[in-house]
């Protein structure tokens, strides 16, 4: 399914240039609610190198105006870290980039998914140049009022295994691959 070309104007970072923007490609391999097993754990497909441009673009998209978040030169002089401060929900970018298109946790890309709740814990700021590995653990799988919920815990660690942040990511999902297909083929 073609991605609207108007989105090209928002491409700012190297990762965005190379990221597959069509979530309908490969949906047949995304993990589904009925396939997921609580307790299953694994590493995300890709690591994520923290760069200034990744943080800057996320902060811009959130409408931030604090120069500590959007002015790299100002941040170099005045930020407590000497770098741009990242919005606390920036882990979203790390997760979508890192999880990839097949394997555990790829249900985050599911067409037809709905977002009920999320929890993010910040341990310490990400720093430029860190290589972040994401460990995914299927944390819960339940139904509530007839709707299938899936939750995973994402642990974000740098190259020295220092825990930087955690995300309990929950979605309401189409339960089976046939259910996903109805949205993918809509």
């Amino acid at each position: 399914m073609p991605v609207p070309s108007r989105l090209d104007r928002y491409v700012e970072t190297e990762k965005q240039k190379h990221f597959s923007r069509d979530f309908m490609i490969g949906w047949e391999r995304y993990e589904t609610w009925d396939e997921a097993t609580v307790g299953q754990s694994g590493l995300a497909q890709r690591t994520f190198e923290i760069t200034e441009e990744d943080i800057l673009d996320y902060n811009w998209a959130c409408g931030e105006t604090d120069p500590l978040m959007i002015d790299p030169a100002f941040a170099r002089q005045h930020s407590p870290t000497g770098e741009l401060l990242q919005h606390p929900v920036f882990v979203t970018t790390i997760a979508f980039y890192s999880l990839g298109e097949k394997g555990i946790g790829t249900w985050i890309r599911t067409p037809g998914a709905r977002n009920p709740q999320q929890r993010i814990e910040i341990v310490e700021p990400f720093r430029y140049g860190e290589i972040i590995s994401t460990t995914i653990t299927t944390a819960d799988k339940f139904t509530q009022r007839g709707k299938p919920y899936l939750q995973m815990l994402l642990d974000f660690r740098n190259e020295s295994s220092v825990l930087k942040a955690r995300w309990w990511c929950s979605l309401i999902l189409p339960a089976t691959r046939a259910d996903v297909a109805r949205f993918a083929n809509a």
Partner: protein
Amino acid sequence: MPISFAEIQAGHSFPPVVQSYAQPAIDHYALASLDMNPVHTNEDWAARAKVFGIPETVGHGMMTMSTLASVVTRAWGVIGKNGGSIRFVDAKFTKPVKVGETVTATGKVKQKHYFGPGKNWVQVDVEARDATGDLIGLAEVGYNLPD
């Protein structure tokens, strides 16, 4: 500006954050977050799929979560000048944000958590409403404050 744990009182309120969810804002967020789910960016597919029962694109839940968190971080800083810092954001989404909406988020300090010198933190309760006044999301934001 950030204040201390000793000074802060429950009920302390934060300036509102107003965020546009016009399609260009949603498009920018999609690229910045790499959440390219078509329910946010593809009007034709959204009209056919009606994921939320409406034939329109909607804003990302994570964009709403960002707006909710910004109520606290814009006032006190992601890392405050006096050493404060964001601790957690726990958000729930109660109504999809239709394309074109304007969302206003407000917050108040709800709880003070006495974890000891250098470890104290507060919980700020934040809520976001659309232009009709309907609640679209709420969050508990934890923030470490200097003693």
